[in-house]
């Protein structure tokens, strides 16, 4: 039997104004389990708390009921008070007689009567409370960053800076991501490579960071602080530790006609290749789909020319298993496919290109060595049309485009237009826009410069149709402000394609039990207050995998995610919420209903041996809750038909006792 103390707070006149606190404390004195009952002006004050502490000692109390304001306000306070008085903090229950009683009723009699009932319910619950201790779990002090773009790089560097080891997993043969493909960055027009590659080198040289390039995450098990991850290191047929990146093999390889994905297929690479000069790790990779040696066993030229002896045609995929305390998703984005936008003739003309392709065309390391030449005939274009919002803000065509605004297109289109006019003043540049959205530091100024100083023709309207005619592209669009329909005979058309999350994000989210929105962007734990955390504890979000972002935003989010990871890894142990589900193994059927409804994957099954009638035993499959993962929602407790699953702090019998106390 509990020895319960009841403490009724006046809250000045907030409660005492409409509730006869004296009558409440008197009435509750006679409830089962109650050995002491009193009231006081401000229970949350220093003096009020001391009153509680002294009463606990004086009356040997084992449980406390505070009739006061909402538990959302002072439950934590009174739990601390209980701990200070030497009893378990979870032996405290609050009867909310302010927000849910005195403040909504005007009549003293009604208020008092209701306060007594609420007090009785809290007492009935405390009678069945049991001391709860939060579970502790150790933290593996290593972080995993999935994705090696600027987001992943920045997150990894920041975590390593704090002294924790970090692994980066990147599916491509090199880190760098989309930023490595970009020529210049808005609004400052620094060269992307000049600011990115030093960071890539930092990553390579940082002894806290390991890079698993050309690798994929295969499996994730475990929970915050204790993830077990399987990483598949795909065979690149080159020994990473021996290859010096001299590039001789990539010059001698006879397979010359492999589309170069780094330049978006606008030129070719060899079967053995290094994606670009500043690749990290700077190691060659053999494309097994193109290599003659791997396909038919005939060639072996690269092995012959490699003086370091790094080529290994027998290499196999390798599985690496590692433990991590935190995981950061930084899987990034891709431009959407233009295949379904027939009206823009992307598949009909080589001279209709996407913005990312334009980046490569203007990049000094690109297929044209930085000269802006038309892909079809290599001639210099004199009239260029940029089309914004291709596939973005596209509600009706869900199978073609995306409903959301891709956010970055306005700015990079302004950049492209400005750079073109700067380098080639003889070129006429038109931009078709619906709106120009430039929130961001120095963004609008940048866009205005494109218009005012560089004389880029911005046309409010959308392009309806592009038709190739001879070596021209007839671009028909509307000019809404002049109420005209225009046809521009362009040499080159650049489509600002919408961006979408990388395809690898969805299966990864499943592995991480992290939630996603309908567009496959990762959802954050709270859209405003916890923007870099996923709802799954220990999983963090960095960069465009959470939503469209430009580079400065990506980098700030990456650092924010790193700060969260560091905060987690800095702890030796994680203290959980003790109000978690608990399975009574004796009653569990092993039916898996609870496992299916658990949003956190906190429930697993174990086989245990049970005594059965007639001195026999049987192996039964029973549920086991991982208290470090369980968040205490209670979905499982109702899914469980046998009542084997219960929720600490909100036990079935406690809630039923409250119901009984209210109803009787």
């Amino acid at each position, binding site marked *: 039997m509990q020895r319960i103390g009841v403490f009724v707070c006046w809250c000045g006149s907030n409660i005492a104004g409409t509730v006869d606190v004296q009558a409440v404390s008197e009435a509750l004195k006679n409830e089962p389990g109650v050995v002491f009952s009193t009231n006081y002006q401000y229970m949350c004050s220093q003096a009020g708390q001391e009153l509680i502490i002294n009463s606990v000692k004086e009356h040997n109390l084992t449980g406390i009921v505070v009739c006061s304001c909402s538990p959302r306000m002072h439950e934590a306070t009174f739990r601390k008070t209980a701990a200070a008085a030497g009893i378990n903090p979870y032996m405290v229950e609050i009867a909310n007689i302010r927000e849910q009683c005195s403040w909504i009723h005007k009549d003293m009699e009604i208020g008092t009567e209701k306060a007594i009932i609420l007090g009785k319910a809290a007492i009935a619950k405390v009678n069945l409370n049991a001391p709860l201790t939060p579970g502790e779990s150790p933290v593996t002090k290593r972080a995993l960053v999935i994705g090696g773009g600027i987001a992943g790089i920045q997150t990894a560097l920041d975590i390593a800076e704090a002294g924790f080891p970090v692994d980066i997993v990147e599916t491509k043969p090199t880190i760098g991501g989309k930023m490595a493909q970009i020529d210049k960055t808005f609004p400052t027009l620094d060269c992307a490579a000049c600011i990115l590659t030093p960071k890539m080198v930092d990553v390579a040289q940082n002894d806290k960071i390991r890079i698993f390039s050309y690798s994929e995450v295969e499996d994730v098990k475990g929970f915050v602080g204790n993830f077990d991850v399987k990483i598949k290191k795909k065979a690149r047929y080159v020994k990473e530790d021996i290859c010096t990146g001299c590039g001789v093999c990539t010059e001698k390889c006879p397979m010359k006609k492999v589309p170069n994905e780094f330049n978006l297929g606008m030129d070719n690479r060899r079967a053995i290749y290094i994606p670009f000069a500043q690749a990290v790790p700077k190691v060659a990779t053999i494309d097994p789909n193109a290599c003659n040696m791997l396909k038919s066993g005939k060639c072996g030229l690269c092995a012959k020319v490699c003086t370091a002896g790094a080529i290994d045609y027998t290499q196999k995929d390798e599985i690496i298993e590692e433990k991590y305390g935190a995981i950061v998703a930084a899987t990034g984005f891709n431009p959407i496919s233009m295949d379904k936008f027939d009206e823009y003739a992307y598949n009909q003309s080589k001279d209709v290109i996407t913005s990312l392709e334009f980046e490569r065309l203007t990049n000094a390391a690109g297929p044209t060595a930085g000269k802006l030449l038309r892909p079809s005939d290599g001639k210099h274009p004199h009239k260029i049309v940029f089309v914004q*919002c291709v596939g973005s803000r596209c509600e*009706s065509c869900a199978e073609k485009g995306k409903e959301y605004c891709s956010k970055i297109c306005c700015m990079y289109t302004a950049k492209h237009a400005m750079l073109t006019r700067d380098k080639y003043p003889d070129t006429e540049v038109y931009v078709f826009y619906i709106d120009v959205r430039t929130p961001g530091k120095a963004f609008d100024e940048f866009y205005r410069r494109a218009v005012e100083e560089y004389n880029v023709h911005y046309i409010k*309207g*959308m*392009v*309806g149709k592009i038709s190739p005619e001879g070596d021209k592209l007839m671009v*028909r669009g*509307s000019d809404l402000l002049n109420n005209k*329909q225009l046809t521009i005979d362009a040499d080159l058309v650049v489509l600002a394609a919408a961006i979408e999350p990388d395809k690898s994000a969805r299966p990864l989210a499943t592995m991480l039990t992290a939630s996603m929105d309908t567009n496959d962007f990762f959802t954050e734990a709270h859209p405003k207050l916890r923007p870099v955390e996923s709802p799954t504890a220990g999983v963090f979000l960095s960069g465009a995998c959470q939503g469209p972002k430009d580079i400065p935003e990506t980098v700030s989010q990456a650092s924010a995610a790193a700060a969260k990871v560091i905060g987690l890894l800095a702890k030796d142990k994680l203290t959980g919420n003790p109000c978690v589900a608990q399975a009574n193994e004796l009653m569990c059927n092993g039916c898996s209903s609870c496992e299916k409804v658990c949003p956190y994957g906190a429930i697993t099954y174990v086989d245990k041996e049970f005594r059965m009638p007639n001195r026999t035993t049987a192996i039964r499959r029973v549920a086991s809750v991982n208290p470090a993962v369980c968040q205490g929602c209670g979905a499982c407790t109702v899914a469980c038909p046998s009542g084997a699953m219960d929720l600490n702090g909100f036990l079935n019998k406690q809630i039923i006792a409250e119901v009984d106390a209210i109803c009787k």
Partner: protein
Amino acid sequence: MRKEIENLQNEIIRISGVNPRKCMRCGKCSGTCPAYDEMEYHPHQFVSMVESGDIEPLLNSKSLYQCLTCFACVDRCPRGVEPAKLIEAVRLAAVRKQGQNHMTANDIPEKLDEDIPQQALVSALRKYSK
């Protein structure tokens, strides 16, 4: 007067099944329209003028009959506004204003004439039966 305009507006919206508020003013419909140069009011203007209740000028404009109903705007509109359907509805409103020209299926037999193409009848029924 205001009431009348509102009624007309609601009627057009109802007949067309189009929600002009979905329009984000991108002008792709007008950018795509093959009859643009013929028209005084262009597809995007139909949408915004119906939305603002500025329907009278549309009813009196020849633009109504210059729409080819090619549906390029319907196909390409990124927001699914379907301007051609709206123009069709305005056209219908204009037709109705002219007087008793409502038509039911029962009226067809007497109108049958060997020289009238089947398609004309179908299209007449489509226009005048709503």
